[in-house]
């Protein structure tokens, strides 16, 4: 569905995305990264708003920039709030749908239907200025979906939504992804995890990891992780940890905490802690490495920023 080769986008001397090569097959994909990582630029390139500085991007086999054949098949919901405050959701979605090539009557029908799907029927005729941010978010989503695109691209779609609306939207988007393709960009991992999507992690404009959630977890096994141990003789414990197989680094934090960096946290728990207890070191607290996807994401971010894990 999307083929990207050596994709680079520069804004003058500022790097938007840097040498990304990835293939995204039809289906659901999550694009993860902290704020400023390059997610919106990546989506801008995929949805034909921006042209690559170097490399290529092909969507449905064609370049998307200024290509009506591709744009007709894409629905995009940007992160920025809707600033058009005088229009109603019905007018706004009808307007966008007409611009996708539908007749006035058909566009109005589609708009009403999709507004119902996003739970905005009651507010469909109220000016956008009178709606909450969450409701405007749903209006934006409706605008992206009303023309039945083959690929729905959502940039931070859950911002401003209350938990109930968020759950509703996740269900809606998940149902969408059963039959069509979806890319969701977010800086919050749990939002993307809820969509059962494949994951791509983008940091500093670079794609640093991609795959299924299981593959990303597998990646975690290959990354050094931290085990934090609070004990009454930290220097003694640090010496024991240094002799434990697989430990790559040890550092002291304050007077009572030892941070052990290892690719095999289990070894620290199974070998170093019993030995320390045997040698009279009182271990008060042990916080194992966070191997959840959130933890992996955090590790990738720290690694990218040059902070030792």
């Amino acid at each position: 569905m999307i083929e990207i080769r050596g994709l680079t986008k520069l804004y003058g001397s500022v790097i938007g995305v840097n040498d990304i090569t990835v293939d995204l097959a039809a289906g659901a994909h999550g694009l993860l990264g902290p704020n400023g990582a390059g997610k919106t630029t990546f989506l801008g390139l995929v949805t034909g708003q921006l042209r690559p500085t170097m490399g290529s991007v092909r969507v449905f086999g064609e370049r998307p920039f200024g290509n009506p054949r591709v744009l007709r098949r894409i629905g995009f919901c940007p992160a920025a709030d809707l600033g058009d405050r005088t229009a109603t959701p019905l007018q706004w979605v009808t307007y966008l749908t007409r611009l996708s090539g539908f007749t006035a009557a058909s566009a109005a029908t589609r708009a009403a239907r999709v507004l119902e799907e996003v739970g905005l029927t009651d507010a469909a005729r109220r000016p956008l200025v009178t709606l909450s941010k969450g409701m405007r978010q749903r209006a934006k989503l409706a605008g992206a979906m009303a023309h039945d695109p083959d690929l729905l691209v959502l940039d931070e779609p859950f911002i401003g939504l209350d938990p109930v609306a968020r759950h509703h939207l996740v269900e809606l988007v998940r149902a969408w992804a059963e039959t069509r393709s979806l890319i969701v960009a977010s800086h919050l991992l749990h939002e993307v995890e809820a969509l059962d999507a494949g994951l791509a992690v983008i940091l500093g404009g670079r794609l640093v990891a991609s795959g299924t959630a299981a593959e990303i977890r597998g990646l975690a096994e290959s990354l050094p992780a931290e085990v934090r141990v609070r004990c009454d003789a930290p220097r003694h414990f640090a010496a024991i940890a240094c002799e434990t197989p697989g430990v790559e680094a040890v550092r002291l934090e304050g007077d009572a905490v030892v941070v052990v960096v290892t690719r095999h946290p289990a070894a620290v728990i199974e070998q170093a802690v019993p030995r320390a207890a045997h040698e009279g070191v009182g271990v008060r607290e042990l916080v194992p490495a966070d191997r959840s996807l959130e933890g992996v994401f955090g590790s990738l971010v720290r690694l990218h920023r040059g902070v030792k894990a």
Partner: protein
Amino acid sequence: MTDPLTDDRTSTSPLLAAIAGAWTVAGFQLRRLLTRPRLAMAAVGALFPAAVIVAADRASRGRLEGDPTVGMLYALIPEAVCMLGLLVTMCPAVADELERGTWVHLAVRPGGRRALLIGTYLAAVVWTSVVALVATVLALAVARVEDPWAVGRMLAALVLVSCVGRAALFAVPAVIMPKRALVASVGVALVVEYLAGFIPAIVNQATVSLRLRSLLVPWMGWDRKLPIEMQLLIDPQPPWVQLLAVGILAVVLLTAAVVILDRRQFPPSDEI
């Protein structure tokens, strides 16, 4: 979205799709203009020429009439009111969308960029023409001219020519430098329309102001009594040539603006 309607698109013809898109945007933009502040601004614009005529008449102790009045109406309506109206409606064509965060919604629609520009152009021409025509009616109600109907018809024609040509002129800065389009357009108006337009050389052939003067003078029958040095400031070709020239100028400028906008990229930080 389990029941996709796949056959209800208007047309796969690029031309028809472009026309439909521009029509859609024009309607939406006109609805956006129907706000209290915009209507108040339009009312001020419509009343302004009549107020100036009344003030000038009082200042001249009731001696303002005939050709000087027509000259003043020309300067106030097809020149000033149209220029100001187009500055506030056409110049922000792209900047408004960037500020509202709506640019990206339009840029990802097939032909959305062109529809935005042409649609905004149509809306600017319609809105400004209506304001200027109302201004014409109000001004003629207080002005003393020999044949108000004839003068009114002539001013209406000049209003339309002014709007068609100058909206296209302002479309170019609107797409080249959206965030400074107003300043750039004022500069263009001063340099192109009011400086180059009065230079009796080839350079003034591409200005709307020359065409407007060249329509006003024969329509008022002033060509026979115009001093020779003033005749250098008009084009002696017949009115249909002037209209054709404005039409060609508008098409060329709009095409250039469309080509530029089609290639423009706005980084995400440009929005909001």
